[in-house]
């Protein structure tokens, strides 16, 4: 599974950038449609839950995100090989 940020909910607080132990996120440079600098999932293949199904571990970003913007999505075949 990979984390995906919903641009309609993210308020750009960058808590995910700070809290991720594997540094998957980076600070954003583009302004979103809501007017915030959203964080970007730059390295989803570094995540603990990369290629993991069923019960997930860590989940610090999902639990800490104050705007409920991060959710888990299944990976495509190409992303699985990374």
């Amino acid at each position: 599974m990979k984390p995906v940020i919903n641009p309609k909910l993210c308020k750009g607080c960058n808590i995910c950038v700070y809290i991720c132990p594997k540094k998957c996120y980076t600070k954003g440079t583009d302004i979103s449609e809501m007017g915030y600098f959203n964080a970007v999932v730059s390295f989803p293949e570094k995540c603990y839950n990369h290629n993991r199904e069923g019960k997930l571990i860590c989940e610090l970003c999902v639990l800490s995100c104050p705007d409920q913007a991060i959710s888990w999505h299944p990976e495509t075949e190409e992303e699985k090989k990374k």
Partner: protein
Amino acid sequence: MDIFEFYRKDRWPHVFCPGCGNGTVMNCFFRAFNEAGLSLDNTVFVGGIGCSSRVPLYINSDALHTTHGRAIAFATGLKLAKPGLKVVVFTGDGDLGAIGGNHFINGCRRNVDMTVICINNNIYGMTGGQASITTPHDFQSTTTPYGNKEYPFDLAEIAVAAGANYVARWTTRQVHELTKSMKSALQKRGFALVEVVSQCPTNFGRRNKMADPSQMLEWFKSNTVRRDKAKSAELDHVDLNLAGQITVGEFVDRNRECYEELIGVEKHG
């Protein structure tokens, strides 16, 4: 359950500032509620006045938005009138400790069966950042521009002394421990308090050189002491001053008789 079946999706994005700890508490509460196996149809959420007391209004269930500081008083009445309902109170430090201090102490003393989640952001955030009873010593706010000369209340220790059945304190940095404590509090019979020390980057952090929410989380991380791992001498030193160190952990877990059992409300209710 999906998180947006628990919360009202049509109200999103919520009103909290970017980086506010209330959203983190909402995530953890959703997990804990799910794991405890409770049903939304059988639960009532009570809130007072303040940023944190807006959380019940986002939950897809019946909620009671009450007057300032009286959330525990309303919840006591609700529980005695309908003993079958599960009552959860969301409240802040100003609501629970300052204006509603006496309701809080007497709620603990009576040991009414309810779960109280206190989001302690160390300041009156909604009204513009005035010093509250939990503002740490020597920290700045709108009303204390030269540093707060008073020492803060320790809400968790007050609840222990007043006789609550379950008391725990965590910060928004320790999300997994917080979720576990919330689950135990929801399953506990009697007064259960979970105090969450949360960040307020807009009004507290900005005046104390921690304008970025991650700086506040780093402050929590480096300044917390686990209650079960700290030495007793250390605990005496940290008890009343959050500025030095924040004691976190489970403070008490006991099974005193609760108020409904004592007055026999369940027979008549």
